[in-house]
């Protein structure tokens, strides 16, 4: 087998193992404490009748491996289960709420990547200037501010005091600005600093000096030669930060009463509606696993020099 083939076989086997592990964790989470899952879900005042009905419905009387198998089999058929609280299919609940979450997460992601990349490039080009210093300091600042508090500050200043934007929910296009900013600014730091480091590294390479020596214009050297290569590691960074961006969006949704998956998750955790919690945990983690695989594929595609051993 060629190195390349071996690398990808390995990668895909690992991805499959991780995906299976993820389903196990999402399943086992309900059995984390020794108590009766039916009682955990219904609370301590539930009648024996109701408890038995829930046990029957969710196969809780069966051994664990049978429960897991039943869960996985219905997942394979595309059935995510039934919510206890809403008594509706989890599929419909998620379908109704995925849109707002995608809008928020993607807008936040775009803000963080664009801001981070631009600041990183400028800092590297103006190395040791006040701009470089500012990039470092603002990066530390943003990662030190809890996003839920940033959201509340934004709400207070721009929503309640200045009345520039709606304060909660999704009523107009401007609704997404504050939540996306609260989400994106905190993540921006994770792109700015690696971008700066990468850019500095690339600018020191032989081929950049050669391009300069050839008499190419500075901005052509920067955009055509340096930037293209410096951007590659940002792809990996994107996949690495994805879980954090999704996690951040859950909190932001609660702050801004954003009717997406995140607020559904928080409400379901509080209501102990575990079929919903398990389904959302599973969907998010599978998305992360696939994003990692996808990032690897793009990475080797744009930069064929990447080693494919091990």
């Amino acid at each position, binding site marked *: 087998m060629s190195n390349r083939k071996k690398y990808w076989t390995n990668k895909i086997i690992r991805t499959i193992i991780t995906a299976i592990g993820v389903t196990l*964790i999402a399943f086992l989470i309900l059995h984390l404490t020794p108590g009766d899952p039916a009682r955990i879900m219904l609370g301590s005042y539930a009648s024996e009748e109701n408890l038995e009905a829930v046990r029957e419905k969710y196969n809780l009387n069966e051994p664990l491996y049978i429960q897991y198998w039943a869960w996985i089999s219905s997942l394979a058929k595309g059935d995510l289960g039934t919510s206890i609280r809403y008594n509706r299919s989890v599929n419909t609940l998620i379908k109704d709420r995925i849109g707002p979450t995608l809008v928020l997460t993607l807008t936040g992601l775009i803000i963080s990547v664009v801001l981070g990349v631009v600041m990183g490039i400028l800092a590297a080009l103006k190395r040791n200037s006040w701009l470089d210093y500012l990039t470092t*300091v603002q990066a530390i600042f943003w990662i*030190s*501010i*809890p996003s839920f*508090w940033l959201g509340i500050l934004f709400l207070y200043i721009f929503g309640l005091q200045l009345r520039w934007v709606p304060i909660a929910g999704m009523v107009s296009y401007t609704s997404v600005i504050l939540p996306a900013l609260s989400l994106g600014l905190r993540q921006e730091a994770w792109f700015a600093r690696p971008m700066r480091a990468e850019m500095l590294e690339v600018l020191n390479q032989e081929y950049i000096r050669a391009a300069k020596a050839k008499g190419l214009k500075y901005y052509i050297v920067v955009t055509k030669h340096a930037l293209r290569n410096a951007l590659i590691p940002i792809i990996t960074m994107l996949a690495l930060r994805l*879980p954090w961006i999704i996690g951040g969006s859950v909190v932001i949704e*609660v702050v801004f009463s954003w009717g997406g998956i995140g607020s559904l998750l928080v409400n379901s955790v509080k209501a102990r509606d575990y079929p919903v*919690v398990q389904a959302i945990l599973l969907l998010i983690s599978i998305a992360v696993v696939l994003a990692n695989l996808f990032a690897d594929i793009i990475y080797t595609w744009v930069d064929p020099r990447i080693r494919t051993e091990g």
Partner: protein
Amino acid sequence: MSEVNVEEIKMELANLKNKKSSQLSLVWKRFKSNRLALLGFVFVMIIIFIAIFAPFLTPYKPYATDPSNRLMGPSRTHLLGTDSLGRDVLTRLFYGSRIALQIGVLIILFEGFIGIMMGVLSGFFGGVIDSIIMRLVDILRSFPVIILAMAIAGIMGQGIYNVVIALGIVGWTTYARMVRSKILSIKEADYIEAGYSIGESTYSIITRYIVPNAIPTAIVMISIMMPTALIASATLSFLGLGVQPPTPSWGSMVAAGRNYLLQAPWISTSAGFFIMFTVLGFNFIGDGLRDALDPTTKH
């Protein structure tokens, strides 16, 4: 002439004696010259001081309600006003520093212990053990920390120790990865091979070379993980899944103040400020330490 020579020799000897600590003093010198790092150090010291001396810094009790003084604005008697039950906000913030630091330290200890053990096992033994541990790391890291922690805290119930467990179950993976890669790189280093070649025992190699070389990584690791632990635990409390009221945690105070944002904005804003102040302190220190321990990474 001979007098001078004796002086010089004495100085040489003194220098030789100091050599052992010179590495550390160099690091300290670099750290000291970093203004942001020093500032961070001051921030953290202030919070530790507040946590220790909270009862002496305020005339109020954190749980003492005063219904006639609800939602009072900042004044000379209540510097940061009062909350919806008439409790002094500043007092609760002071006592909140105890909760925050306690949770932060417990999380670091819990996840650090598991993570370092797993990382050492992985790095030293390699093979199947390494594969199993690293797959487990991959699996756990596919979940956003805060989301898995929410689900776990939701099942186990609220409280300080459950917050620590919920966050530690994912958090150890960061340590395990870092420790593993550090051990792998140290194992490959020339001085290890040199040690073996002059007949040093494995024990002596571990204690004399591997442990001292891994210490800077451990210090940097703690300074990186502390901010994460503080923010994540505050987030859980904010969502109502962490430390429960009336315990004065900063996260739950931000949440409580959110309902009175228009009448009493000082509750949420000041509680969040304390979180930011503390986290900023640790981040400045972490940044300074990283540069001081490894000056090649910057500029």
